[in-house]
């Protein structure tokens, strides 16, 4: 097999990459990727397993994974999907055919070029009405245990039923979604490639959810300059940036207490006391957990790739990183409306950060950017819908010559 492949490669001088149309004119014969996305090793059982330098620290069974410090193992990851499932998920993620009127895809609000967010204060979906909250980045969601700003979903699968069936977001229904997908021959074929043991001929919802979750879980960003520093190459950061790191983890700023490395979130909800200047107060996790002490509590967002995801906070209130950071130093509870009695987190205090320190923090957060594993946007979608503006430029050339 290997031989044949290499002969194919060298002899014919053409390689086939993932997901290309054998006969693009007729849109048939789309073949799903049989190799894993970057960052994953293909196992003998056709599963993609995450490989990261952070896994080198798992042997030192000292600390709980994921809770801070530089050389700390990652929290448990959701991996083990097949290359085909991941690739199918990629098509679904970008395909507006999933929405009620075929205009909105997951990628409308989670755009690869905007750190998988959308650059808006709060997102806008099928109804053209601004939603209540901002779209979070999807980088590294494979490690998260709770989803949404208010932590109301426990799995990626549970999460995506939110946007899919919300009238304001993608506005479809379970029935419509299945009917649409089952009506597209190419998708039927792709689902049987991704789920070779499937029982029914028809596409079922759990397969849709699983494939999208598989794709989301492949969005790994752990190769920033900060990571090079953490792994021991101290020249990776400038003097300023190291100073920023030291402010970040200091007990004056205390950022690292909630935005804990290596993911830069401790995955807890916390009340930091943001107000909602132009609208009614968002009760956050209180509603989800039926607990009034959690009023105004939101999930601590990861700061990886935050440089790409302005504006900031659950309501997109802050244009720049510096604006968001300044919030922390304007006094504990300074924004809390008189009518609210919030249980503000104890790490929110009066750190008295200087404007120099605020810019150091922002410099440091910018070192957390890494898009080296950014996936490619499909050139053509199985639904036949054309992507209006091609979202990504970094593309694998689908057919290329090897000399």
């Amino acid at each position: 097999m290997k031989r044949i492949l290499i002969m194919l490669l060298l002899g014919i001088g053409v390689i086939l990459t993932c997901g290309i149309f054998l006969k693009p004119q007729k849109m048939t014969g789309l073949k799903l990727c049989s190799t894993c996305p970057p960052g994953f090793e293909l196992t003998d059982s056709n599963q993609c397993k995450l490989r990261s330098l952070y896994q080198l620290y798992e042997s030192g069974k000292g600390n709980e994974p994921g809770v801070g410090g530089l050389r700390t193992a990652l929290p448990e990851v959701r991996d083990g999907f097949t290359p085909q499932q991941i690739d199918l998920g990629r098509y679904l993620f970008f395909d507006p055919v999933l929405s009620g009127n075929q205009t909105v895809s997951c990628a409308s609000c989670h755009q690869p070029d905007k750190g998988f967010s959308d650059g808006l204060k709060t997102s806008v979906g099928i109804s053209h009405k601004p939603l209540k909250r901002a779209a979070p980045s999807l980088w590294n969601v494979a490690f998260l245990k709770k989803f949404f700003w208010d932590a109301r979903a426990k799995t990626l699968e549970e999460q995506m039923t939110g946007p899919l069936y919300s009238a304001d977001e993608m506005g479809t229904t379970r029935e419509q979604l299945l009917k649409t997908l089952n009506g597209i021959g190419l998708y039927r074929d792709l689902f049987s490639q991704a789920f070779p043991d499937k029982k029914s001929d028809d596409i079922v919802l759990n397969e849709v959810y699983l494939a999208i979750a598989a794709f989301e879980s492949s969005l790994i960003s752990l190769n920033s300059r900060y990571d090079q520093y953490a792994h021991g190459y101290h020249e990776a950061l400038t003097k300023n940036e190291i100073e920023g790191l030291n402010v970040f983890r200091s007990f004056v700023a205390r950022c690292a207490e909630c935005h804990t490395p290596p993911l830069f979130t401790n995955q807890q909800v916390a009340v930091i006391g943001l107000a909602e200047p132009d609208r009614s107060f968002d009760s956050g996790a209180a509603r989800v957990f039926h607990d009034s002490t959690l009023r105004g509590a939101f999930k601590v967002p990861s700061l990886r790739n935050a440089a790409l995801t302005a504006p900031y906070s659950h309501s997109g209130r802050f244009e720049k990183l510096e604006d968001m950071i300044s919030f922390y130093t304007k006094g504990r509870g300074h924004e809390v409306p008189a009518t609210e009695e919030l249980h503000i987190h104890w790490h929110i205090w009066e750190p008295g950060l200087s404007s120099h320190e605020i810019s150091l923090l922002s410099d440091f957060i910018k070192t957390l950017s890494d898009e080296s594993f950014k996936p490619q946007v499909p050139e053509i979608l199985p639904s036949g819908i054309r992507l209006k503006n091609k979202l990504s430029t970094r593309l694998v050339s689908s057919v290329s010559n090897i000399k």
Partner: protein
Amino acid sequence: MKLFLKVVVALVLFGGGIYLGKVFFGRSKNIPAPVPSYFNGDGASASDSAAMGAGTVTGKIFEIKPGHSIQAAVGQANPGDLIRIYPGVYHETVYIDKDNISLQGVIENGEWPILDGEKKMNDAILYSGNGTLIENIKITNYKGNGIMGQAGNNYVIRNNWIVDTGVYGIFPQFGKNGLVERNILTGIEDAAIYIGMCDNVDVRFNEVYGNVAGIEIENSRHALVEYNYTHNNTGGILAFLTPGLPIKTCFDVIIRNNYVLNNNTKNFGAVGSTVSHIPKGTGVLIMAADDVTIENNIIMGNENSGITITDYTNAGVNHANDPESEPNADRITLLDNFMDKNGSDPIDEIKLLMKMKLSKKGLDIIAVGGGEGSCILNPDRYVTFGVDKYLTCKASDTHAVKTYLLAKPVAPRQTTVAEKGKMTYYGVCSGCHAYNTRLVGPPVVMVQAVYKSNPKGIVDFITNPVHKREDYPEMPPQNYLSPETRQAVAEYMLSITK
């Protein structure tokens, strides 16, 4: 009171004397002293931490004198090196992001090396490496912490003198296997010694006074707090399970043989901090922690109460709840303790309790809120509230526990070379190279064809890439990977078949 002070002074001198004797006497100051023989295991018992893994000096010794930067030495140091700091004043934040670095102050004629943050700097010492040793340093006037560890294992922090360093004095966080001993700390506005989210730690022979909290064990497991002298803080010794942290348990804490005296200092904690809610006059406070044993302590003159045991709800702390953290203090074991003159001026809620009990004498022990499986020995010796439901303890002492340090240091974070190669290939290279398809860079099959059994060729190339192929972009250098890692990844790249 006087009497106890004397006893304590004697004890501290005794303990410290042995130690200082070993380190400083009988050695000319010109001979660089490696870290005390104490660590080499000769005659050391398990509780002497012979096996900590910290402070084993195998490399270079740096000598830092005033006018020079400690951080510059840390920057040059390699694992196994010792940095000796001579008396004088240093204004810097020292951060140690490497394993097995020792910082040792040199005390000459009673002069200490002093780290002074001039109330401008955030933290004095930050470490994330394993096997960090910090000793004999005076630290003062910082705004954040004196010494803070973040996920460093096998740490030893001892013989430091920490005065007014802001929030915490000594704060190892997320570390396993650590020793904090013979430090003196005062003027800290939160906990002087704060063991946060750690495992296996001994806190011994420290003196903490004039702080909001003396010693706090929070969301940590297997902690031994013994032979400490905690006096004139707002609260002496605390064991907390705080909600909302990523570690959801605090258990297996032994508090024994400590002096907990007159912790009646007015609370000067920052608004909103957990400890700002501690009533002055608190001796020992257990909040929502489990499996805590309190034994053989001398707990006297604490005006609110000697020992307070509470669940989360009754603690009066204003934090948001956490559905994942269990709010009760369960299985608290109160063995014999020497208690007197506690509770003479308690908070109003406790005054009310006393009225209910028709007691005029202050309370030595208060237990409020939920919790199960707790016990007490000889309750009649004390004035108590809420322990009526406690059973009689089956255990009478904790002698079996000599230490909570591990018999062997936590294994270093090291992996086999093969694994290193694999993690690096997939973790880094695979963003640009796939096995047989073209990504940003050429496919691995092409690389293999060129560098067949020549990993060195790959190492040289990735260290210092030259532009070879017209139709590909130039590759960025990968020299940030250690030479060993570069070799490992080169070999791995040549070995893969899919």
